[in-house]
């Protein structure tokens, strides 16, 4: 029951239109970022890159970037480690509370992030911690660590436990098995989980809103400017942040392609 050719073409066009729909607002932001006028109105009369220069010179923008980068970097490292072990508990080992564990770690993903942020603010307040960018790291982890776990778990499902059992039969202890077998096999999953963690943390706004204290991340700053009135730097910084993420993804794709071709050429030499 293969679908007819006209169905296939119709679905393909629908798919392309969906992609266009998803990216259309970014096109508008892109045009706005190179408009010369302080107050934007289409069609754009004069183009200029002066707002990019202004954005890159500004010290407050640099502070925003550094805060966002530090949060995203620490969140990525912790999520990869916690997610690696979490995924083994999720998918690999048969233990008594496995199904319960699977369900509990899904809960934070379903929660409204802004409410999570507020709950964390009250919790920090009641144990006497003053919010700063460090508390935002914890806030991001609540939501991102479970996602990293799920991504690594998908990889862990396709993993043959007989490999670990064989190693154990030959006398390897648990640490050796983890280091020599489990970790290398799950590595692709761990790396994509790290990429996801970094990008989700970099772009996250609702979790940061109440948990960064006096510090501010890039999405928070953008939101404050959007709600309080237009600034020509909003589209510029928005595009800079988007381009940063996309470059990182391209880099990741290029690296994985490189690794695969190196492996293949080695295999063909043997």
């Amino acid at each position, binding site marked *: *029951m293969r679908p007819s050719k006209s*169905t296939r073409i119709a*679905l*393909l066009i*629908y*798919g392309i239109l*969906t*992609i266009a729909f*998803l990216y*259309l*607002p970014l096109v*508008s932001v892109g045009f706005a970022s190179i408009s010369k006028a302080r107050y934007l*109105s*289409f*069609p754009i009369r004069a183009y200029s890159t002066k707002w990019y220069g202004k954005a890159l010179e500004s010290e407050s923008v640099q502070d925003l970037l550094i805060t966002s980068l530090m949060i995203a970097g620490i969140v990525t490292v912790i999520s990869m*480690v916690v997610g690696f*072990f*979490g995924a083994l508990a999720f998918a690999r*080992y048969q*233990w008594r509370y*496995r199904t319960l*564990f699977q*369900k509990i770690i*899904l*809960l934070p*993903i*379903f*929660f*409204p992030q*802004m*409410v*999570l942020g*507020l*709950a*964390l*603010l*009250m*919790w920090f307040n009641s144990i006497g911690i003053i919010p700063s960018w460090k508390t935002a790291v914890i806030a991001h*982890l*609540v939501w991102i*660590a479970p996602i990293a776990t799920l991504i690594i778990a998908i990889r862990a*499902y*396709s993993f043959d436990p007989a490999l670990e059992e064989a190693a*154990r039969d030959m006398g390897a202890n*648990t640490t050796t098995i983890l280091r020599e077998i489990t970790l290398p096999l799950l590595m692709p999953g761990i790396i994509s989980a790290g990429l996801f963690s970094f*990008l989700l943390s*970099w*772009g996250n*706004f609702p979790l940061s809103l*109440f948990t960064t204290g006096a510090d501010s991340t*890039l*999405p928070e700053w*953008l*939101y404050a400017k959007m709600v309080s009135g237009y600034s020509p730097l909003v*589209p510029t910084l*928005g595009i800079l*942040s988007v381009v940063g*993420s*996309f470059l990182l*993804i391209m880099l990741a794709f290029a690296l994985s392609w490189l690794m695969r071709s190196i492996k293949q050429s080695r295999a063909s030499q043997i």
Partner: protein
Amino acid sequence: MERIDRRLGFLSALPLGVVLALSFLAPMLVIAIFSVMPQKVFSVLNMPDFSSFGVIISQGYYKSLLWSLGMAAVSTFMLLIICWPLAYGMAKVFNRFTLVLTIAVVMTLFVSENIRLFGWVLTLMKGGLFEGHIRHWTGIGWDSPLYNVSVIVFGLVYVYLPFMLFPLAQGISMVPDDARQAAADLGASRWRILWEIDLPLAAPGIVIGSLLSFVLAAGATAESKILGGQAVIVISDDIETAFTFGQNWPLGAALSLILIGIIGGLAIYGVSRVDLDAIMGRKR
């Protein structure tokens, strides 16, 4: 072997368990305690009363809750219809294009939703990408369609599309081609196959996708603020206001608790009915 598995399973669940206990369960407890504190206190060391819940009823805070749930329900239903053909295409029809589509949709998730919604403001506003160009070329302009309820629902549909699309595609890929083939051979119509084969067999994906879109949309706030210009106040707005301008933590906590109760109840119900091992691709 089994004994080792049990111990290792527990040990490897520990790091994530500790993170979630400290940063998820503990804050939820604090919210629950705060919600029964007297009005406008900032410490949990007070005599509990239930005044916040009285305020919610007498001041009409339930209206924003109803708006949120209503708009979430409408946008979830729309997403189901919009995403079904696309998810079907991804699971059964496209070959390489599935990968292209997946990458294109996932990449949008990494762009802060503020920026994307702001992009829609620039696209739709008077003098925006659409109206500005068309007025320039044809002389015909129109008023901005922004700042009302339908544009908020539009924003919800736009932002949460991936959360419906991927679970749905995963669910549809679990429908065996043989079953559809057999039904067609026996003379079932296209609608009958959809109704009696596709929908029941793809149910886990439909449940997860609808649940995710509904609960995320119910707790959303950026759509109503950026696109809707606060044409309606949603529950997350009320919660935020209670904590910030209102300086009334117990009221905010009580509102949060109600939202969490509804969302958590739905999430636990939905997740408990779905076999995660099957969805995520257990081989054994």
